[in-house]
């Protein structure tokens, strides 16, 4: 008869799943007692954020915490679930990389109301009284520096296209605004197209291929992140324009730093995910030990990476 067998199958699958969870959990658990710290990260779908999240977790573990990563998958509602869960299961602190500057405020406030300090990393939330501290990457200033370098490289006349990130993302616009605050001062530099490639390498490839059809005579491409810069470079390579059209990225991803060294990409901007993650973890440690005075915001400067200084960078930071 089939039924008891099905029941057995069902039960054993559940047990296997739970054992698996237990094993995975054991791997994550070293410190005893309640020293649980959560790392809530906007997405794990991009190596940059994986580095951010894992560095935060590893630093927290070094400091003796039981740290776990939660992936919000770029969805504030999922992030909200994570916060509900970690509030009810008594976490001590949250190292937080938000999905949205505004949409995430409510979550941070809920944690604060439950006496759980939140330490923002990389991305800002637009409130001064919610997070305990915010270690922020200054995207705008990074793109100001990049814009200056752009003008030096291209000169004061020329045509370029801009590939934006996800249009709903605040950093997309911080980067774009920083760049334009410089480049728009030079009326000879004409932006012939501005399109979104959603921070995605293959989308950037497609978008730029299409744009090159209409604008074969561009001098440069400014990309809102490094993945798009690599995609743009591939499109240029296919069109036989690699080297003739300069590509600018942002993030400091490993492959792009290498590409800068090889002269494929003109410049990128190094953000320091490891520095931010470590500082946030250390702040959390200090908070739990009793310290309460933290600056609300600590901007972490970002640095321009060009062929001239590329040998100093690598592995998501300075060597």
């Amino acid at each position, binding site marked *: 008869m089939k039924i008891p067998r*099905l029941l057995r*199958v069902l039960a054993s699958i*559940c047990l296997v799943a739970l054992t698996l969870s237990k094993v995975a*959990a054991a791997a994550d658990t070293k410190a005893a007692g309640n020293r649980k710290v959560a790392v809530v990260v906007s997405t*794990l779908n991009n190596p940059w954020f994986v580095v951010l999240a894992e560095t935060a977790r590893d630093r927290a573990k070094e400091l003796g915490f039981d740290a776990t990563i*939660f992936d919000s998958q770029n969805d504030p509602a999922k992030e909200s679930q994570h916060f509900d869960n970690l509030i*009810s299961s008594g976490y001590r602190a949250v190292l937080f990389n938000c999905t949205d500057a505004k*949409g995430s405020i409510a979550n941070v406030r809920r944690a604060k109301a439950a006496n759980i300090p939140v330490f923002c990393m990389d991305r800002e939330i637009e409130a001064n009284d919610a997070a305990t501290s915010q270690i922020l990457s200054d995207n705008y200033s990074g793109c100001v520096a990049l814009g200056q370098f752009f003008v030096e490289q291209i000169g004061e006349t020329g045509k370029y296209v801009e590939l934006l990130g996800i*249009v709903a993302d605040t950093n997309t616009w911080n980067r774009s605004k920083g760049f334009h605050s410089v480049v728009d001062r030079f009326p000879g530099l004409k932006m012939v197209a501005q399109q979104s490639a959603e921070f995605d390498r293959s989308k950037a490839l497609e978008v730029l291929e299409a744009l090159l059809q209409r604008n074969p005579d561009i001098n440069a491409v400014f990309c809102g992140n490094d993945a798009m810069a690599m995609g743009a470079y591939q499109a240029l390579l296919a069109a036989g324009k690699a080297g003739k059209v300069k590509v600018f990225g942002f993030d400091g991803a490993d492959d792009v730093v290498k590409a800068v060294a090889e002269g494929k990409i003109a410049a990128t901007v190094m953000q320091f995910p490891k520095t931010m993650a470590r500082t946030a973890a250390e702040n959390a440690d200090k908070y739990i030990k009793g310290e309460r005075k933290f600056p609300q915001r600590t901007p972490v400067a970002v640095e321009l990476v060009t062929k001239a200084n590329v040998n100093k960078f690598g592995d998501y930071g300075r060597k």
Partner: protein
Amino acid sequence: MSGSKFTFSFRKFQSLFALAIMVGALALLSDKFFTPDNSWNILRQISVNLCLSIGMTLVILSGGIDLSVGAILGLAGAVTAGLLKNGLALRGLEARLEFTVTGAIVAGIAVGGAAGWFNGFAITRFRLPPFVATLGMLSIARGLTMLWTGGFPVTSLGSTFGFLGTGAILGMPMPVWIMLALVGSFVVVTQRTRFGRHIYAVGGNERAARLTGLNVPRIKLAVYTLAGALAGVAGLIVTARLDSAQPNAGLGYELDSIAAVVIGGTSLSGGRGSIGGTVLGCLIIGVLNNGLFLLNVSPFWQQVIKGLVILVAVAIDKLNARGRES
């Protein structure tokens, strides 16, 4: 074939068994699991998926599929938030409509319903496969959301509206109230109304339903419209909970919703299943999410385990179906 009665009743309760096993195991493994706080968490967390999944259940029962519910959720949330925040300018009349909370809510649900109606219209009038029609709507609704919001989240919607997401009556969170009310209504609709019976008939055998004199296009139109409107309600809950309408809200939710419906024992080929099963499906997913969290499972493993659960659920359903039909 007198034994098939027994099979049937087991089938009805198999999800319940799975849920009971999971709850029991989690209660043993984590002392945080069986707390009132955590129970409310789980219920609150499944409320959005359940709203979507009720509509999805109707659609799947009718033999279709709706891939656009997540996108409609985003659109409805954005429309409600936008109307609440900025109103609606009437260009020619030098005037503006300032929406009340009720108005914005009605508008959000209506937009969801309209998008769903369009799905149904494309499916019945132009005979598009539901997969294709709703795939198109997925993209259309996402695009409309971007146009309406300009790609930026709409925030600070006020506490009256926020009550929908964060408030509580008699100690029960609002999303849970809404969810229970919808579940109750749609259990009645599917089990006790002609319309409900007709959905099962259309999904079970569309040709037979037509030859029995049922107005199949009208039934489908109603089903997709309801699914859209329910996605609108889900959009309201998400928006109210976050106090912010995200332009990309609901990304990928259609898959969670289909998963819940399937785990709940509703057959993807239509005509077989129930709202009750879907409630269990949502609870299983909710408890699983929460349990994996409480057990500190790495997010990468969580996805693998969730996938396995879906496969096992459907495999068991298939095995049972084979036993029944032989």
